[in-house]
């Protein structure tokens, strides 16, 4: 069973290598290797160190965060369709981020504003779901998420209606998702946020195993189901919000990735989180590679690429569920 971990790690390394080698100017693996250590052609060094590697690393961090966040939300809600994007968490984060940017708040605090927006969205989704039934009901929760997402969209439109053009450009960028503006500083910040949120989720992995059995059984095993669920939502929302602040709305990664990892026979949440981080990272790196190489020199929005893969997957899952 170590084989799958070997494949996960190898897949991520291969994806990162491809993403640094391919593009308008294709580099050989040897050139990439040399450029990583400041050797060889100066142009190749710039391409690898300044243009492609920070971008690939950002994509990997986004994928890892969304994978873990999705896995945690699915387990806690006992809902195979739960995902930060579909639950409106990402939408709420985008509202927070757009507000922060339009108010001219410094960039390091944008993730916090996004987090506040994400938490507000989670609360709103739960309020809607609670009014209509329980959080265990996949369809009601999805409906609540869609409603909250639509609401977030309308709030963003309202903010944009009276915003200067540079804010509008930023906001549109956020709503489509992109890792094109990656810098090492931003990557460092994102990594920090992921470490806090993801670390908390890893620590609570076994509690999430128990919570996935249902509220009554979780209570019978000594857990306070509501309190545990709340802290998991908070951590998962922080992770999702940080990715939104760094790269905008990238949908369906949190949905697809945990299912792929479960498909390899992983069930407990600790390995599920680790696997979702690795597979999510590899997939988003590849998605971004596709986004910038399919129709050069134009770049497709990253969120559009992940949605094109994710929507059919979502429909297939939905069919199995209903």
């Amino acid at each position: 069973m170590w084989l799958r971990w070997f494949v996960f790690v190898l897949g991520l390394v291969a994806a990162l290598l491809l993403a640094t080698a391919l593009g308008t100017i294709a580099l050989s693996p040897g050139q990439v290797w040399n450029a990583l250590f400041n050797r060889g052609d100066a142009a190749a060094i710039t391409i690898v160190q300044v243009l492609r590697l920070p971008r690939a690393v950002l994509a990997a961090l986004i994928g890892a965060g969304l994978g873990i966040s999705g896995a945690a939300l699915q387990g806690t809600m006992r809902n195979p369709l739960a995902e930060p994007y579909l639950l409106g968490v990402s939408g709420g984060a985008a509202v927070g981020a757009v507000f922060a940017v339009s108010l001219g708040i410094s960039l390091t605090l944008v993730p916090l504003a996004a987090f506040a927006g994400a938490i507000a969205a989670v609360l709103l989704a739960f309020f809607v779901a609670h009014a209509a039934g329980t959080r265990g009901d996949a369809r009601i929760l999805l409906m609540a998420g869609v409603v909250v997402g639509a609401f977030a969209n309308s709030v963003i439109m309202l903010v944009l209606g009276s915003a200067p053009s540079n804010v509008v450009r930023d906001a549109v960028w956020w709503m489509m998702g992109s890792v094109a503006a990656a810098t090492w500083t931003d990557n460092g910040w994102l990594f920090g946020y992921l470490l806090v949120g993801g670390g908390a989720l890893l620590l609570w992995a076994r509690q999430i195993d128990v919570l996935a059995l249902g509220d009554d059984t979780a209570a019978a095993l000594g857990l306070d189901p509501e309190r545990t669920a709340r802290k998991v939502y908070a951590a998962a929302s922080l992770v999702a919000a940080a990715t939104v602040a760094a790269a905008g709305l990238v949908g369906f990664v949190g949905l697809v990735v945990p299912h792929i990892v479960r498909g390899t026979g992983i069930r407990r949440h600790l390995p599920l989180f680790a696997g979702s981080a690795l597979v999510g990272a590899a997939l988003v790196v590849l998605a971004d590679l596709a986004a910038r190489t399919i129709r050069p020199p134009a770049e497709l929005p990253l969120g559009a690429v992940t949605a094109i893969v994710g929507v059919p997957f979502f429909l297939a899952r939905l069919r199995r569920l209903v």
Partner: protein
Amino acid sequence: MIRYEDVVVRYPRASRDALAGVGLDARRGMLTAVVGPNGSGKSTLVRALLGRVQLGKGRVLVNDHPITDRMVFARRVAVVTQREELAFPLSVEEYVALGRFPHLGGWRGAGSGDRAAVERAMERAGVEEFARDERQLQELSGGEWQRVRLARALAQEGEALVLDEPTTFLDVAHEMSVFELLHQLAGDGHAVLVVSHQLNLVARFADEIVLLSAGRVAAAGSPDDVMQAAVLERVYEWPLVVTRDPAVGAPALLPLRVRRRT
């Protein structure tokens, strides 16, 4: 060991109390059964024990102490709730092993003692072959799933076991084997509290029966005390007779067809 004292529960927006002052005592070495019609408050009793409903009045005691720490409670009392639906695949062994959660907490790894407890529990509930065949929970039949849930509760190795309708979906043989197991557990000194609709089954195995009606105790005592036609007819609002089980002489209930006049 598990004692309810004058417990009152009312659900939000309900017009009457789900439990209107219920007292009962599930003692060690005894199989205590709670019976009663639909809506009489049987499941609310279990939910009150788990802290899933707010008590309006009264208290629930374990070993004469109020329940303050849920983890400590789960180490002493194992509860199998009425329904449980899994959202994600899990193997039988992984599931039963989660019964050790109250002992392990969030982070400590399972030791040899924990693994032995899981083995014992699976053997006792008769599900060890499912684990050997690496069966997945979603492949199990309703009866097998109930036994696996029982194994998870046994893995908690508490002093008391509480089960809400453990024989729903079970055929006659599985019903009997579950109650035989509960009877054995009580014989070993566990306090066993079982909520059930199966009056006749309960009458054969229980040491004490508590009959609930509209949130109150309508009768309590030995099966012979409780299984009185007059009492049961009033509570279930259906004509019936009480006969004797031919083998062991336990009281047995026979609901009657309503006679139509032509």
